[in-house]
């Protein structure tokens, strides 16, 4: 089976129920989903539709109340804390709406940290981070503290950090939510370019129609359920 058709992620009957203040809330309700390697997919839907919850479940930051998630034929929905951390380290790259960079580290160190976690040697780390910063237009900012950067620059650092470990899947939760439209479009363009170049599967969430239109596939969520799953030409 070629990479383009290989099934990477399978969600079966996934539900996630929260009980804040003894009140049951079903954030995700019986979702079935398949993602193939190299897809560029947008999870769309209004606030509270379950986009972030679904991303957290796929990223093993949370565990489903029922159902199973398989990644490359391995069940990942009931891993221990340590095992799920190791899974995320080797397979997942996260991009958050609020960037979530380590404030005391420089741009270079923030990106390099992922490779340190992966146990990559110093020389290879230097080479790969330098190349990644060049690819994301951050070379000039390499030694700057991330707290000194603009929102767009910080999100580019977050993208570089998400990509540096060669993840199999990138999960981006409202990656343009805190950016102006120009910076947001640039970040999405960067992600799309890297998706095409490295065949990395990218799953991002958004409720912004312009950002949604940049995806190759759109999965529309409402009240924790998939109400539409469509392939679209870019820019539709």
């Amino acid at each position, binding site marked *: 089976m070629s990479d383009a058709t290989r099934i990477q992620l399978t969600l079966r009957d996934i539900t996630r129920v929260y009980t804040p203040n003894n009140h049951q809330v079903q954030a995700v309700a019986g979702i079935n989903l398949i993602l193939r390697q190299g897809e560029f997919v947008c999870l769309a839907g209004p606030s509270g539709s379950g986009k972030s919850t679904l991303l957290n479940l796929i990223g093993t*930051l949370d565990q489903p109340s029922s159902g199973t998630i398989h990644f490359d034929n391995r069940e990942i929905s009931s891993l221990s804390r340590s095992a799920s951390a190791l899974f995320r380290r080797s397979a997942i790259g996260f991009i958050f709406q609020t960037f979530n960079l*380590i404030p005391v580290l420089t741009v270079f160190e923030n990106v390099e940290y992922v490779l340190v976690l992966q146990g990559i040697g110093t020389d290879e780390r230097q080479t790969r981070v330098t190349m990644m910063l060049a690819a994301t237009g951050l070379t000039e900012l390499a030694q700057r503290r991330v707290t000194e950067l603009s929102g767009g620059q910080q999100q580019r650092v977050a993208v570089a950090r998400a990509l540096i470990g060669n993840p199999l899947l990138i999960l981006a939760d409202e990656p343009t939510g805190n950016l102006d439209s120009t910076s947001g479009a640039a970040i999405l363009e960067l992600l799309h370019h890297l998706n095409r170049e490295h065949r990395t599967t990218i799953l991002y969430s958004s409720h912004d129609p312009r950002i949604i239109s940049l995806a190759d596939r759109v999965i529309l969520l409402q009240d924790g359920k998939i109400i539409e799953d469509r392939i679209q030409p870019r820019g539709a």
Partner: protein
Amino acid sequence: MTRNLLSGSSFSLALFTAHLQIALRNILRHRRRSLLTVAAVAFSVFCLIVFQALIAGLHQKMMESALNLDTGVIQIHAADFNRNQTRLLPLANPGAIAPALATAGITSFAPRLKAQALILAGRHSASVLLSGINPSQEATITLVRQKTSQGTYQLGPDQILISKGLAEALGLTLNDSITLMVQSLFGQTRTGRFTVGGLFATGLESFDQSHVYLSLTAAQTLLEAEDAISEMAISCPPAQAAELAARLQQSLPAATYQVKVWQELVPDLAQLMELNDATFRLLILILFVIVAMGIANTMTTVIFERFREFGTLTALGVTPGGIVSLVMTESLLLGLFAALTGSLAAIGACAYLARYGIDLTHFTSANQYFVAGSVLKAILIPSDLVLANVITLATAAMAGLYPAWKASRLNPVKALSHV
């Protein structure tokens, strides 16, 4: 390409270095809070080291005074000797003791012949403990020679050394005559006339009123105990007492000789020192519980402020063990800075107190523990310094453990959405 999705380790040198860097920069980022925490812990370390050095100095001063007044560090007596007995009990074959002392490497020792006596001066009299001594050897054991301010310590055959206090009580001055009445080795009452050859004053009235000295030969003659001694007093570093006593006892049969160390000879002193140590340990425990609470409070605040950061690290693939190591590194760094600062300040203070000391004249009355002088000087023992630092780091580690565990158990979803 197949990738092992669950491989990797929680610890590596590069990860430790990265966490050290993050921890250090976070400490520097919150300078005021870090400074306050470090200052509080450093003050505790300072107190621990300085108090420990002062207690070491106090114990040395107490031992110097108590042991150098009369006891010495080790004593050899006849096997059936009892400190409360009044009967003169000479050592059998005292000639066997010198080779045993030489074998043990002991050079400071003094033979004594001790007996109860009655001193008669005109219409006055006093019950005293008579010690026959060899002045040159005795001077290596006790400080009575240093405390002899009038007359001579090198006693002639018809001279007696008494304290100024006893002389005043008996209405005596230098060169006055007195009569000593004793019970001889054979149980007969004997008297001898002596002139007051020297006057001493240790400052401890109870001792001064009850001790008098003759030359060893004069005492042997008076007590009809030719060449006899009842006690061999030995001086050596108190810490070596047990080992030297054991070596001596190996050479001297227990059936004939009893070898006792200062803890057995002056149990009150040993108990008082133990009490001091116990009290000090209790104070240190209280101090370091406060220190631990201070560090734990700081680290808990740190965790609370950095919920989102720990969530991010978890998302990036840092294991719970890695989070624990990061928080513990920060806690240990705070402890390390505090230990270094406190130790340096304490070393300076101890150097000053070792040179100039603290004069306790105004804080304590004359007692047997301050005969050698009332200035308390600090003695900084290197192992105490190391121990203080180990305790501080262990406290920092323990204080960081709970916040670290807490951080490692954070729900990453909640942590990432924390504002």
